[in-house]
């Protein structure tokens, strides 16, 4: 007796059928794929680019490029992995085009921002809606401490919840390299947090 396919395998099989229909030029099938994946593409682009408008433009561009390249997609990897790969490459190209990417260095973060990061890290986050609105800026400041590649790894792994293997597939990196870089990226973030804490103490003394 054949074992019933797991729900995950069934979903993957269903998605493969939709991808095949889209490859034959069925735009309704492609629209279904867009609906399924747009949130995660947008989240990855937002995490890397850190600007909502740019992330939206890039996400649209990604989905258009994916449509054009769809006939060449050989279904050897998951459709989502393929899409993430396009997303990460497109973000990378976008950053290169942007050239003078505004770097928020540690010394450029305001005392106030540093204090808020410290508060957030220390007592479980903001409760005040106005302060919560500033969270985007703080995330931007924090993630800007990392190199492009470390930020991509961190966003895919911690924000999008992908496995180390998936991150490696998307970024064309060895699994061990992903693990090491991930580990170091987190360590860098914590160093920043410690420095933010120090600046808070210094400010308190003044």
């Amino acid at each position, binding site marked *: 007796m054949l074992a019933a396919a797991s729900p995950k395998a069934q979903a993957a099989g269903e998605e493969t059928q939709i991808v095949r229909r889209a490859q034959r030029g069925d735009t309704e099938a492609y629209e279904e794929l867009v609906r399924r994946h747009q949130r995660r593409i947008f989240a990855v682009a937002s995490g890397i680019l850190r600007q909502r408008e740019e992330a939206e433009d890039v996400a*649209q561009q990604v*989905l258009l490029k994916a449509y054009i390249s769809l006939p060449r997609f050989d279904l050897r990897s998951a459709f989502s992995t393929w899409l993430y790969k396009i997303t990460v490459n497109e973000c990378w190209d976008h950053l290169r085009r942007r050239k003078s990417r505004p770097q928020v260095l540690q010394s450029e973060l305001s005392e106030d921002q540093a204090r808020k990061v410290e508060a957030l890290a220390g007592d479980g986050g903001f409760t005040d809606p106005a302060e919560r609105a500033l969270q985007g800026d703080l995330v931007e400041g924090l993630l800007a401490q990392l190199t492009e590649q470390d930020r991509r790894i961190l966003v895919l792994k911690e924000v999008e919840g992908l496995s180390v293997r998936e991150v490696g597939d998307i970024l064309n990196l060895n699994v061990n390299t992903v693990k090491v870089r991930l580990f170091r990226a987190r360590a860098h973030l914590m160093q920043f947090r410690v420095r933010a804490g120090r600046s808070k103490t210094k400010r308190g003394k003044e």
Partner: protein
Amino acid sequence: MNWRNWKSGTPSGACLRNEALLEDYLEGALTPKAHWDLEAHLSNCGPCAAALENARAGTDLVRRLTTPVADPGDVFTRRVMARVRDEESKIEEQQTWWHPLETLAMRLAVSSALAVALLVSAAAWRSNQAQAVSTSAQSFAVDRLLPDSAPELAAGSDTLMGAIAENHDK
């Protein structure tokens, strides 16, 4: 896996070369034996224990700081699909523009190939003709140059062959 460093329990920075193992530990991806060995090591190695704590806190910080991104919604989907349809019509337009050109190019290619084949055949035919004319001209010249000696030469040749045969019989 290089367990020597782990098992020695030396609190040295060299242990940190095994960051990948610490990552597996955080992810719960180690085998029970590897997990137990690493915990034993962590209880003796300050740098590794601190690095692990840092990583754990870093993950927590990122997750706390990052607000889950909401689905960009139907408006976004419609924008994407509008661009997709635009692209489709551009491709179709290109195809309709290129199709007659492609047909014309194909016809030109076939015509050129036929013309080349005809030229080659004509050249070969002409070369054969020229050769045939040259051969007949040569025969004609020989006939003209040696018109009377030919029968004598033929008779001489017969006499010579007869003499050889006789010699052979003797």
